[in-house]
């Protein structure tokens, strides 16, 4: 069970879901065994990256209430075991992807594990307030990997899905950091509220949300998303934007803004729901299929 927790199952579930959406949205029929194995490879790869993250971050995880009970800081798994587990699982997942699907999918999977474990965890996280902006790319790869597993290529539509998650990550994560900034400060992690303050964080949440909103509608323009996707993106997007505006107008993260943290928590919840709904809409449209084109 500790090894399951080491693989960050909740993060893994979102990764698997977005990879599945990319795989299903790709315009080819795929053998179900090969498709299932590709998704398994993505899941194992995501878990491996999570294990490497927990190994490297054990020191700062031990300083934060949110992460102190993770298997390594809690003493349930030794750091070197977590590292070996992560490395072996990484190799296994990339090998499995190469055997099951396409070389491009295996290459992208390997790169995303490297990006999360090395570029984000070992480098960006402790050195810049833009850590999650750039590091968000690691979490944005799964739909492209799914698409590449199905077709062997990664066209514009696949990168649109990448862009969706990439632009979604900053407002999502900064909402969380508004109520965990004290812990990040204690652990020496330069999250935006720690280095630039809560007001600047609230402003950047709104700026990124405003950039993200039209981008969420872009798949409709290319024909990737249909009527259901448009409805979900519009209604959910309005809720997301309203929630971001409420955070911007609040004092969430300030010394006297404890009561307003509920707005940040609400945005955090809505952001997860919104991303899930967008990819669920794509899945429903393509898998059932219930696709009605909107773009001419």
């Amino acid at each position, binding site marked *: 069970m500790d090894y399951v927790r080491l693989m960050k199952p909740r993060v893994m579930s979102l990764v698997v879901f977005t990879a599945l959406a990319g795989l299903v949205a790709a315009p080819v029929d795929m*053998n179900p065994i090969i498709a299932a*194995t590709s998704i398994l490879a993505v899941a194992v790869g995501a878990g491996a990256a999570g294990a490497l993250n927990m190994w490297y971050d054990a020191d700062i995880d031990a300083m934060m209430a949110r992460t102190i009970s993770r298997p390594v800081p809690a003493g349930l798994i030794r750091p070197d075991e977590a590292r070996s587990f992560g490395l072996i699982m990484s190799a*296994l997942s990339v090998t*499995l992807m190469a055997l099951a699907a396409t070389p491009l999918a295996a290459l992208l999977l390997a790169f995303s594990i490297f990006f999360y474990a090395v570029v984000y965890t070992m480098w960006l996280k402790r050195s810049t307030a833009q850590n999650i902006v750039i590091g968000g790319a690691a979490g944005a790869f799964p739909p492209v990997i799914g698409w590449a597993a199905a077709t062997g290529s990664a066209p514009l539509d696949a990168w649109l899905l990448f862009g969706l998650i990439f632009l979604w990550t900053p407002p999502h994560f900064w909402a969380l950091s508004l109520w965990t900034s004290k812990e990040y400060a204690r652990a020496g992690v330069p999250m935006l509220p720690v280095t630039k303050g809560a007001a600047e964080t609230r402003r950047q949440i709104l700026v990124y949300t405003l950039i993200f909103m039209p981008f969420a509608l872009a798949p409709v323009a290319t024909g990737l998303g249909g009527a259901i996707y448009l409805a979900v993106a519009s209604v959910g997007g309005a809720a997301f934007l309203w929630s971001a505006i409420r955070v911007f107008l609040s004092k969430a993260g300030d010394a006297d803004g404890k009561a307003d943290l509920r707005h940040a928590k609400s945005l955090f919840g809505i952001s997860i729901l919104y991303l899930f709904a967008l990819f669920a809409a794509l899945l429903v449209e393509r898998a059932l299929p219930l696709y009605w084109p909107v773009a001419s």
Partner: protein
Amino acid sequence: MTVETPTPEVAPLTPEQAKARKRRGQWIALGLFAFVILVFVLTMTKMGANILVRDL
């Protein structure tokens, strides 16, 4: 003349540690077995169609 190999001192495992190690070993064995089966099934899936279209 024989040279005795020094035996490193190893702290004995507690019953809980021994149990955990056994359980871990079983999971690794199961995982490896599943991997082998999966690679076999994948190979059959990918080769299957091609075998049927070979020249006789």
